[in-house]
């Protein structure tokens, strides 16, 4: 036995910082969520161009995922990692840089998203300078984390640390490869991928952001805080190992299930489905290991709000990870895709699993971090029940909304024509459910406010100065294997004896490399064929690049966040082709940097919008949607008729597109004059039809040009707004 012990202390100040950030952004993110829920129930809640649904929906998702859940993860990681490794964080300065850097990124997001700066990729909306900042801060976090591992005083890595390692490595890979883009301005860029490939990369990222930002780190937190709070050993070490590795390896493949029946090749879709189905057991492994850890401690759940939150969180995790694989089955997905069903699914996860894990963890941490007792256990109970009721109302109403709309879209009458050909009918049917969702969200947010009050009051009861506890532990010397009984039996016995895994657990570098290999190899199995096999995306001769004006119009479509409510991807079902026209082909979006297929149809699909209505129709519709469709819930965009179109940057945009391989030909040197020519034509057409005069310099003209172009290339119809002599 070594006698020499190191004396050191844990950095809890950084944990307190992250904890308060979690609470602050939690309230902000949920408040924005409530506002956009109100906007869907009544469009009057769209408060001008900066606070309309299309711009706030990404703010809500980013705030809740990266600000609320992100800070919660960092709170838990910074607290538990130090204790599980018996070491203070590698560098207090890096910890602080991580904290302030992350908060600065959040503030940048909160400013740029309402201003309309977005890459139009879900959960990856932030523009390129912020993406670079995220990468830098993430790398700093990684250095700090792996540095702490390097100076640890605990020989073996505990399962929570495995999950943290997987999260940190994978998020870095996902973030970097999905956000590769070429800047076309200080806050504007075009994805280097287009169409099918961009869609594939986005949902490889999008699905695994759920996996490695909202699932694996929270499983790590569960493995630390649940046995701590229950004061019970973890149920099964073997289960930890098997479910960890299978989860990490299988999750990566599942992304294509977000693109069933789209222009994604069938093989990718099938792989996405099968790997999603195989994910049930690995996911449930985590749930089982959590819930069974509570054996013998169930009486504590009755009077301990911390455990109540954990039990409901893990149960919600089990439900949503069963539902996810079910939704990934193609035939189920054909009903659920584009509907609120998906929104209900993610809120089971976000409100239940992430929200309640965070609450339980913070209720457990607060007395320890603030060195006093929790201000009120009773209020914590209230928070639990109010928030649980909120989840129930939210989820049940939005499930029924999703299924209702999905069934209405596909309903045919006895003569074989659409029973609800008018899209607005299917929207109106959802209104009562949207109001119930508002009620559920209000309850959940109320619970959150009670939560914040409780923690702030606990903090108010802190001692004048915090005690700094000195911890003593022996440094790691050279490894001496324990006197273990020799394993009897052959290779199988050695395999199931798991001593090989025990060896990995004391070799962090080997462990991390293995995780990285699992993730990257699994990714390449799908990425390489998607990019290399030409037959995946058969080209269509008549599909041409957007004109310079249409390209700017597309950028305005992106700025206003139209893709949040309108898909541009008609699936090969008769009920879709009857409603929208010929189904979308892979070759149609080869010039779409980024792709804009969308994931939700709050309004109708726009893939074949071109030529459906005259230009003046669009002008009036954008100005005041309710003047065209009385019950429409679309926000109004009157500013498009008054704001000047930015002709000066058009050449730059076209040049970047050309750099990405879009065959622009003539437009390379005269994009601006071409845009003016087309704008004049459209403005004249609008005026001639009896619309307002003088729109040739206004943004609306470009947007109309884009909308009139959508989906016309493979049809005989020429868009009314294309100048003679080509596109």
């Amino acid at each position, binding site marked *: 036995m070594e006698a020499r012990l190191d004396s050191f202390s844990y950095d809890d100040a950084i944990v307190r910082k992250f904890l308060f950030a979690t609470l602050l952004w939690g309230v902000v993110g949920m408040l924005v969520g409530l506002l956009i829920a109100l906007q869907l129930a009544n469009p009057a809640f769209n408060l001008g161009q900066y606070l309309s649904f299309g711009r706030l929906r990404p703010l809500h998702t980013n705030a809740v995922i990266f600000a609320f859940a992100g800070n919660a993860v960092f709170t838990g990681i910074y607290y538990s990692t130090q204790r599980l490794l018996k070491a203070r964080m590698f560098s207090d300065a890096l910890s602080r840089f991580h904290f302030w850097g992350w908060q600065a990124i959040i503030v940048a997001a909160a400013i740029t998203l309402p201003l309309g700066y977005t890459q139009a990729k879900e959960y990856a909306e932030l523009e390129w300078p912020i993406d670079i900042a995220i990468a830098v801060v993430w790398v700093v976090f990684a250095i700090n984390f792996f540095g702490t591992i390097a100076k640890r005083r605990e020989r073996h890595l505990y399962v929570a640390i495995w999950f943290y390692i997987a999260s940190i490595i994978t998020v870095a890979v996902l973030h970097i490869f999905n956000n590769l883009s070429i800047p076309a301005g200080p806050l504007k860029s075009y994805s280097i991928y287009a169409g099918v490939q961009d869609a594939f990369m986005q949902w490889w990222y999008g699905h695994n952001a759920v996996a490695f930002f909202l699932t694996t780190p929270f499983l790590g937190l569960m493995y630390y805080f649940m046995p701590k709070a229950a004061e019970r050993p973890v149920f099964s070490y073997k289960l930890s190992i098997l479910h960890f590795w299978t989860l990490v390896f299988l999750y990566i493949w599942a992304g294509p299930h977000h693109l069933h029946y789209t222009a994604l090749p069938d093989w990718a879709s099938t792989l996405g489905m099968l790997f999603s189905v*195989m994910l049930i*057991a690995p996911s449930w492994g985590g749930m089982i290991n959590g819930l069974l850890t509570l054996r013998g401690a169930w009486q504590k759940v009755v009077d301990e709000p911390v455990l109540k939150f954990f039990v409901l969180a893990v149960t919600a995790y089990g439900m949503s990870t069963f539902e996810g694989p079910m939704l990934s089955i193609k035939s189920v997905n054909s009903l659920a895709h584009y509907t609120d069903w998906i929104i209900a699914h993610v809120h089971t996860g976000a409100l239940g699993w992430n929200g309640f894990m965070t609450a339980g963890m913070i209720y457990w941490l607060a007395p320890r971090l603030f060195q006093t007792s929790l201000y009120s256990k009773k209020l914590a109970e209230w928070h639990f029940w109010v928030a649980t009721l909120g989840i129930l109302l939210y989820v049940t109403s939005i499930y029924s909304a999703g299924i209702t709309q999905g069934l209405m879209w596909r309903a045919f009458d006895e003569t074989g024509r659409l029973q609800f050909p008018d899209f607005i009918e299917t929207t109106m049917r959802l209104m009562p459910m949207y109001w119930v969702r508002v009620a559920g969200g209000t309850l959940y947010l109320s619970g959150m406010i009670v939560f914040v009050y409780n923690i702030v009051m606990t903090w108010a009861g802190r001692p004048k100065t915090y005690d700094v506890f000195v911890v003593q532990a022996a440094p790691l010397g050279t490894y001496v294997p324990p006197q273990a009984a020799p394993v009897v039996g052959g290779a199988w016995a050695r395999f199931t004896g798991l001593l090989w895994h025990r060896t990995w657990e004391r070799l962090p570098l080997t462990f991390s490399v293995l995780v990285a290999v699992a993730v990257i190899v699994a990714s390449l199995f799908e990425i390489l064929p998607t990019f290399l096999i030409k037959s995946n995306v058969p080209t269509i001769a008549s599909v041409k690049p957007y004109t310079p004006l249409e390209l700017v119009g597309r950028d305005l479509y992106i700025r206003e966040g139209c893709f949040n409510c309108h898909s541009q991807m008609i699936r090969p079902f008769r009920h879709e082709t009857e409603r929208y026209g010929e189904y979308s082909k892979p070759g149609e979006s080869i010039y779409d940097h980024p792709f804009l297929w969308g994931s939700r149809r709050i309004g109708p699909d726009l893939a074949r919008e071109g030529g459906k209505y005259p230009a003046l129709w669009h002008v009036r519709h954008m100005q005041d949607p309710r003047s065209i469709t009385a019950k429409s819930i679309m926000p109004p965009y009157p500013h498009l008729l008054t704001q000047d179109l930015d002709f000066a940057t058009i050449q730059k945009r076209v040049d970047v597109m050309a750099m990405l391989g879009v065959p622009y030909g003539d437009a390379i040197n005269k994009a601006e004059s071409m845009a003016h020519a087309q704008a004049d034509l459209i403005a004249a057409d609008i005026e001639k039809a009896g619309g307002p005069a003088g729109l040739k310099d206004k943004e609306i003209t470009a947007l109309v040009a884009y909308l009139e172009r959508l989906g016309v290339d493979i049809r005989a119809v020429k868009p009314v707004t294309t100048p003679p002599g080509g596109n």
Partner: protein
Amino acid sequence: MTRAGDDRPMMDHEYDGIQEYDNPMPRWWLLLFAVTIVFVPVYYLLPSDIGNITKADMYTQEIAAFNAAHPEAPKMTAEQVGVFVGKADAIADGKVVFMANCVACHRADGGGQIGPNLTDDFWIHGATPLAIHTTITEGVLAKGMPPWGKMLKPEQINSVMAYVISLHGSHPTNPKEPQGILATAEAAKP
């Protein structure tokens, strides 16, 4: 399931006071995992009509099945369309359809706005009841008139056609300027 009596803490596994049991993985869980893995080859072997089928084939089959069950109805003739002109109940039904679908472009009084004036003597795509019926059913995509044949039921198209013809000569205030070619009032009758 495991019994509580099986619990054996792993030796040498203690992290910040957290211990781990050496419990076996639940049988049912392993079985579930095995079933989902076996499902992979099974799915690839499934006959195409219940499982593994490409999108394009699936769509072709759906359309073929529909066409087999719904032979295309013969086109309406001038006589069939003509019987609705001037019929009071058709005009009343047509007004409802018109107000719900057409006013955004043609104005509530038919005087025209985005779309042409429907009350004057000028018609772009023909003035006969059959021509109007066809314009409504098939639309004029190049001009922004949607094909209503997919949106409206056949009887709704008949009645909205009757309503549009009934608007003729109603002289709304501030109408859109005449478009198309002059058709005499006589020509608007079958």
